[in-house]
């Protein structure tokens, strides 16, 4: 369950980053590098939950080298590898290359070597080279957007293609996953931006924040509409599973689906953001409102993943009744492990922020 949540954050953060480059949205430029690093930090941790489930860490690299064209699960290795190496790392390298060279010249021993190595000992900072970097980033981003869609659409695809499970098997699943990924990714980058910027003692760029919030607003609306569409479609189809799904929603998933996901995670934040738009609110108050909204949205998306993954296993496959999920606390797939996995990307991000400070731009 942690895994779809993490990959969702990756795809969302990357799609936000690509807005700057492909669609030239100048307002959100302050979060461009931050969102790329966020995507990388979460992407590095994303396969860990799978690893813990499968065991055999010494053979894990086989996932990336062993093709199996008929298995959707096995495609993960390729989708992941392509996205990590072909898109994200390459884009980061081109984006930071010139800065890395300049920094390494100014710095003292350990960091200068780290930065020089990370720039692959590149030395060319001429205008032509920098222009080539920009061009490359543009191309990579254009390839990157469908790749990000692929990465998270793929997770939805795996659930959506389980025909035997009526709670999962839906063509809309990849799209719903994708939209909720975008929602959670934008909310995460907003959260990080709102926490990190004051920590460095700098003012928050309200233009940027307002723009992010408006993207978030539209994404939540689309996400909500898609999920509502899926729900109405199921109701109208009224397949034989509808009774058990109705019981499921009314009993076991009442709290996590109706209360947390829909009310706290969607309706309330949308209400907050509509209120912010209707009444001219001061910047300080706006920050507070946005912050509340993004925490709620993050909670809601987590509940979404819970409802899909756990919910799909809570009813008997013959539709006779509901089963029970008992969460382990310790154990390799227990609560503590899940919490550690959720905290790890922030640790990785901390290191990445030290090595690639997104706010430090080398002088020309």
């Amino acid at each position: 369950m942690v895994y779809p949540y993490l990959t969702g954050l990756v795809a969302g953060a990357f799609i936000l980053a690509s807005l700057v480059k492909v669609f030239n949205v100048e307002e959100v430029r302050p979060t461009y590098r931050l969102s790329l690093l966020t995507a990388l930090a979460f992407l590095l941790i994303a396969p860990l939950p799978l690893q813990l489930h499968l065991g055999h860490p010494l053979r894990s690299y086989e996932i990336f080298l062993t093709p199996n064209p008929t298995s959707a699960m096995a495609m993960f290795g390729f989708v992941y590898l392509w996205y990590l190496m072909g898109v994200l790392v390459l884009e980061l390298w081109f984006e930071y290359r010139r800065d890395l060279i300049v920094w390494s010249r100014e710095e003292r021993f350990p960091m200068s070597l780290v930065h020089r190595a990370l720039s692959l000992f590149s030395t060319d900072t001429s205008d032509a080279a920098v222009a080539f970097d920009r061009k490359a980033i543009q191309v990579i981003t254009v390839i990157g957007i469908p790749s990000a869609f692929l990465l998270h659409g793929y997770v939805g695809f795996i659930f959506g293609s389980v025909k035997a499970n009526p709670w999962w098997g839906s063509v809309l699943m990849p799209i719903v996953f994708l939209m909720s990924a975008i929602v959670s990714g934008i909310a995460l980058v907003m959260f990080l931006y709102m926490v990190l910027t004051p920590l460095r003692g700098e003012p928050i760029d309200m233009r940027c924040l307002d723009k992010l919030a408006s993207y978030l607003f539209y994404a939540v609306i689309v996400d909500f509409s898609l999920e509502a569409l899926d729900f109405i479609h199921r109701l109208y189809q009224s397949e034989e599973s509808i009774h058990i799904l109705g019981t499921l929603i009314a009993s076991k998933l009442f709290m996590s689906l109706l209360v947390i996901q829909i009310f706290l995670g969607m309706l309330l934040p949308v209400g907050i953001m509509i209120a912010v738009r209707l009444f001219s609110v001061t910047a300080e108050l706006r920050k507070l409102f946005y912050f509340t909204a993004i925490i709620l949205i993050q909670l809601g998306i987590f509940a979404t993943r819970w409802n899909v993954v756990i919910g799909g296993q809570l009813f008997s496959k013959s539709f006779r009744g509901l089963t029970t999920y008992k969460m382990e606390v310790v154990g390799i797939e227990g609560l503590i492990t899940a919490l550690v996995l959720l905290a790890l990307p922030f640790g990785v991000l901390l290191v990445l922020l030290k090595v690639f400070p997104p706010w430090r731009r080398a002088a020309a």
Partner: protein
Amino acid sequence: MKVPEQIKRLAVVLFVILAAVLLTRYLIPASVVDPRVYRASSAQREVSKEIKFAGATTCSDCHDDINTKKKVGFHKGLSCETCHGPSVKHAEDPSSGKPFAPRERKFCPQCHEYNPSRPTGFPQIIPTIHNPLKPCITCHNPHDPVPPQVPRECSACHAQIERTKALSRHALLECTTCHSTPTRHKQLPRSVKPTKPESREFCAKCHDTGASRKDAPKVDAATHGSRFLCWECHYPHMPGEA
């Protein structure tokens, strides 16, 4: 056209990665990645584990009487140790102690508590209303778990009473404990009726404070609701709730 510096450097990285992949593919001897190498120790590990179960056939060597009964009953598919727990010690040395025997009420509902995903026809109960507080083995012999039956001659007409009584605390009482039925009741059920207890002393045989039966609830028959017969307040086929 001049190839940009970046492309050259990335090409080197790509080359290194490719070379590493090919090296791991072709230079590492197949015997090292052979699954048998991984699994050789796991088979040994399993074998060296302590044996705890005696196995279904071992028990019948000594307990043939029980096995004869069990193998025709509804529990014929269960092995003895399903309920009695791992018993290899007892099998090797019967004097070392008896295997576990579940006598508590909470044990049987692990399989027989109502759960909609259990197969149709599988005997299921709701423990809070099925003979509350009594251990299952009071009425059911686990080696031949058929519940006490009301005689067909009574239940053919009085099926509702049969079903009510089967879940009540009086489940183990036979119909004839309280009713005596003339033979002609079967020919003329409306004009020749069975008897009903007509004195308070009848119930008091079990329920009076001085009565010898231990598991029945006790009242002082001399003072408790003195103007009425017992069954005017207590329904004998489903007496009292837990």
